[in-house]
């Protein structure tokens, strides 16, 4: 059986890559996608622990996280569309006015 550690390392790697994406990219859509990556990394952890304890509780939490990710993506993309209509940009550092 594959030790749980490996899953944790995989999850850590994806998490860090996601954080790098959030911190360095200018495009809001890529930033949102990086956040999805981070949430996904968390899911791997949860499922791995769920397997470790042979209990479905972790999977239930993962479902909640996917729900959350869906809500976040929908609202985030709605904001991006609204911003794009008004400012005609998707670059995060140009959206620094808090108004338009």
């Amino acid at each position, binding site marked *: *059986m*594959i030790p*749980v*550690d*490996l*899953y*944790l*390392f*995989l999850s*850590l*790697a*994806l*998490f*860090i*890559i*996601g*954080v*790098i*994406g959030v*911190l*360095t*990219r*200018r*495009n809001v*859509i*890529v930033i*949102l*996608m*990086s956040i*999805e*990556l981070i949430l*996904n990394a968390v*899911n*791997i952890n949860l*499922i791995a622990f*769920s*397997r470790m304890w*042979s209990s*479905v*509780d972790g*999977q*239930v939490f993962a*479902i*909640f996280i*996917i*729900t959350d*990710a*869906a*809500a*976040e*993506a*929908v*609202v985030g*993309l*709605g904001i*991006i*569309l*609204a911003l794009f209509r008004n400012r005609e940009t*998707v670059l995060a*550092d140009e959206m620094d006015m808090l108004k338009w």
Partner: protein
Amino acid sequence: MLLNSILFDFLAGLAVVSAILMVTRRNVVHSAVFLIGTLVATAGIFLQLQAEFLFVVQIILYVGGIMVLFVFVIMLVNLDVTLRFPQFNRQKFVAGALAIALGGQVFAAYWIGHGALHFKGSSSPMPAKNTEAVGQALFQHYMLPFEIASILLLVAMIGAVVMAKRRV
């Protein structure tokens, strides 16, 4: 289980490589494609962890739903133009270094406390009927969070409609 191990290495490698490519590609559509790659690889890992229902949920909801939405929005906003601008912001070196430092910190913590944390490999098998077990847990033990999640989705839905509408 050699086969299992090879499968894990393949899927994990696919996930990490796609994730790196996703963050580094200039073209946003390529980024989205590589994120889809990561998500599918993760779904494979879920399957390997005997979470069949989560595997299907990941594919249908995440890949088939959320990511389609992403791709849709990427195509709606005219991206050829923004491609000409630099894709990384000015703090990219500092931010990258900090993020890697964070990763190193977590890894170091794990390395130092290796003995203290005991991750046993799974011993007992998962419940045979995964879908039914998840359903039971969702609708009995986690009933309230489930309903709250549904309200969250409703709120998000209304929010998105309001956001995307041209004239409110």
